[in-house]
């Protein structure tokens, strides 16, 4: 038994068992504990599902497991290796949501990696989940790396969002240190520092690396770590690549640098894009560099969208030597490379585009125009009304008229958003809203929306009963 136990990978062996042991997620712990104690005391919270999000390896799943133990819940786990089609969700989650636990206070339904629900193979799964959430008698918890994925949009409004932070290097090191002690391993502090640094806050990756070195050599030294972990040196790799491009002595050197780079093409181009002005200064140099990059991007899109992968080679010509030899006039600047803003901003970019999309959808069916007309003609007007109206009750009333979400109001109103939302809530509270508002004006759309939930409810009841009898 003991021998066998030893063969369990460390990432499982050392996974946190108690809430205490989950490192550095105090805010997330607080939110989740409050939410779960409500369930435990029999009061269902307003949002009956929670979505835990954050980078990989920061303890999302572990925390749920620990909480379940601590609060005495059963745990039902579904992950990406299970089918999650509409049918599968109905059969598993649908049943569990209305079941009484045999032991303990209830069942936590854990849907791991909800962003991994496949669009085709798991068709309808998310929709099914959306139907179950507002009705469930047991807490549903989901995890995701990227909650801004398009397919998760309808989910976001209906769940408690709990963010998990990236771990700091020191925290990762702390954990590694403890493992070394438990395994009675000889570990150099500098080696642990390197492992932690390269893991970029992914604790699981760090533990894996530690194990990879320890398993092979029985000790963990800086030299060994350096030799073995070269593959993870992403950041230093990109800096080396950039240096080789900007300071190349010959065309082939620059070309080799970009060809051998570990980064995928898009990321590499994002790095170059942001760092050209940190190295070049003369407008002519800048223009030539950007034109080369722009041509490269054109070749890449042709390669990707038309499947002409043989054209990739020209991408490398243009982002390697093409950048190097764009500099003809000025000297090279000494500024340090910066992390590409575009990558940092990707999530918020995706978020804002999605809000725009959902607004377009909402308004298009009401105004009888296409989504692109809404985006290009209507939204700017709405933004003007929301940002510059003399009397903010007016936009507030539009918020109610189109049932806009907070995200959407934020997009339309900018820094006026809070005020408008408050006003809208006040209006909603103080004035009695007629059952069928503005019958004359708003004909089909609102009525459809009103009808829909009723129908859903009936369906669901039927289904629940079926489940009990099957």
């Amino acid at each position, binding site marked *: 038994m003991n021998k066998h136990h030893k063969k369990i990978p460390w990432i499982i062996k050392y996974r946190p068992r108690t809430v205490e042991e989950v490192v550095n997620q105090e805010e997330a712990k607080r939110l989740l504990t409050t939410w779960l104690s409500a369930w435990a005391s029999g009061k269902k919270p307003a949002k009956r599902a929670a979505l835990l999000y954050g980078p990989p390896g920061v303890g999302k799943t572990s925390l749920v497991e620990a909480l379940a133990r601590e609060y005495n819940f059963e745990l039902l786990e579904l992950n990406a290796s299970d089918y999650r089609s509409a049918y599968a969700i109905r059969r598993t989650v649908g049943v569990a949501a209305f079941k009484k636990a045999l032991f303990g206070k209830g069942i936590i339904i854990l849907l791991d990696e909800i962003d991994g629900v496949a669009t085709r193979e798991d068709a309808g799964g998310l929709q099914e989940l959306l139907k179950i959430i507002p009705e469930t008698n047991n807490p549903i918890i989901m995890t995701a790396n990227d909650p801004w994925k398009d397919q998760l949009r309808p989910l976001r409004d209906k769940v408690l969002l709990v963010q998990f932070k990236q771990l700091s290097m020191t925290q990762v090191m702390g954990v590694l240190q403890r493992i070394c002690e438990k395994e009675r391993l000889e570990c150099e502090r500098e080696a642990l520092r390197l492992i932690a640094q390269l893991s970029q806050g992914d604790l699981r990756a760090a533990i894996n690396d530690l194990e990879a070195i320890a398993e092979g050599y029985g000790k963990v030294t800086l030299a060994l770590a350096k030799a073995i972990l070269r593959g993870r040196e992403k950041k230093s790799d990109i800096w080396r690549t950039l240096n080789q491009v900007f300071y190349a002595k010959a065309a082939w050197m620059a070309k080799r640098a970009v060809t051998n780079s570990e980064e995928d093409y*898009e990321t590499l*181009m994002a790095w170059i*894009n942001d760092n050209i*002005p940190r190295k070049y200064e003369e*407008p*002519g140099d*800048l*223009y030539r560099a*950007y*034109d080369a*990059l*722009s041509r490269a*991007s*054109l070749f*890449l*899109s042709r390669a*990707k*969208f038309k499947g002409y992968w043989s054209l990739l080679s020209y991408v490398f010509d243009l982002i390697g030597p093409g950048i190097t030899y764009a500099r003809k006039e000025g000297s090279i600047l000494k500024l340090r490379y910066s992390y590409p*803003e*575009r990558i940092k*901003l990707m999530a*918020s*970019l995706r978020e*804002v*585009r999605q*809000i725009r999309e959902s607004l377009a959808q909402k308004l*298009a069916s*009401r*105004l*009888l*125009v*296409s989504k692109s*007309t809404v985006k*290009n*003609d209507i939204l*700017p*007007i709405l933004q*003007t*009304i929301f*940002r*510059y*109206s*003399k*009397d903010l009750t*007016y*936009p507030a*009333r*539009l918020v*109610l*008229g189109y049932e806009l979400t907070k995200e959407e109001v934020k997009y339309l109103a900018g820094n006026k958003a809070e005020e408008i939302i408050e006003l809208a809530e006040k*209006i*909603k509270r103080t*004035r009695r*809203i*007629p059952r069928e*508002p*503005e019958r004359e*004006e*708003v*004909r089909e759309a609102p009525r459809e929306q009103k009808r829909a939930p009723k129908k859903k409810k009936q369906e669901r009841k039927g289904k629940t009963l079926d489940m009990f009898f099957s």
Partner: protein
Amino acid sequence: MSTAFDILWVEKYRPRSLDEIVNQEEIVNRLKTFVKNKNMPHLLFAGPAGTGKTTAAHALAHDLYGEYYRQYMLELNASDERGIGVIREKVKEFARSRTPPDIPFKIILLDEADNMTADAQQALRRLMELYSVSTRFILIANYPSKIIDPIQSRCAFFRFQPLKKDDVVARLKYIADNEGVEYDPEALETIYEISEGDMRKAINVLQAAAALGKVTVETVFKVVGMAKPKEVRQMIKTALNGDFTGARALLRKLMIEYGLSGEDIVKQIHREIFSNEIDIPEDLRILIADYIGEIHFRLVEGSDDDIQLSALLAWMSLVGRKLGVSG
């Protein structure tokens, strides 16, 4: 104004029945005959944006089937639906659905039909034939020349004209009075000029201007200016001053705050370059327009927004500096 809700005036004042449509008389009359006869051929509505094509289609359906007409009308948008396959499925299903009590056909409304490829239109033609017993198609297009001949020859053709000044101004007046909005009469004419006969646009501008207070020529222009992100012009100026980094910071702001796509931004730059409000020498304008054409082409081919716009800005700072423009 006593209710808690408000909706956009374009929605609030949209004509519901053919009788409420105050312009395009000739078209309305032809459509009314269809209602009277309880029969109609396939229809093709063509004309510029905001001339009431979609509204007319809905009004026609309303008059044929009554208030709950939407259950007898399938609404599709060619640029929203992914491919003819999806359209075929939806049409098939719709054709099978309940028929109206009184009229022997249901209506399929296909907006932006000119955005379909020729192949897709061929397939559409076959759909029109296949379901011609129980359905009628209303196709809506901006550019009738992009509709293939075999479809055109199967449809009764209606060309919607840009609205006349008087019609638009009268409508604006009616709305303003009804909403208790103060206005300078001159301002309404300005709105017409700006909106180029697009009624929807005109009403939108009126509503936004009203939100700022009394509608004057001033506020109208102010609203139009506000509706364009001010960062665009600022970005152009910064670039032409030779400050690439500054211009790019503004570019990023546009993308992140407004969620604009690369094409959106290129179009806006283009619009600004040719507006009179920005002072650029003529030949510079042409040089820029030419490069914009190239960049737009690269964007259409699917390349990266951020990179392509950076290239455009880099080029603008280069020519700006060379020609010593001060934006």
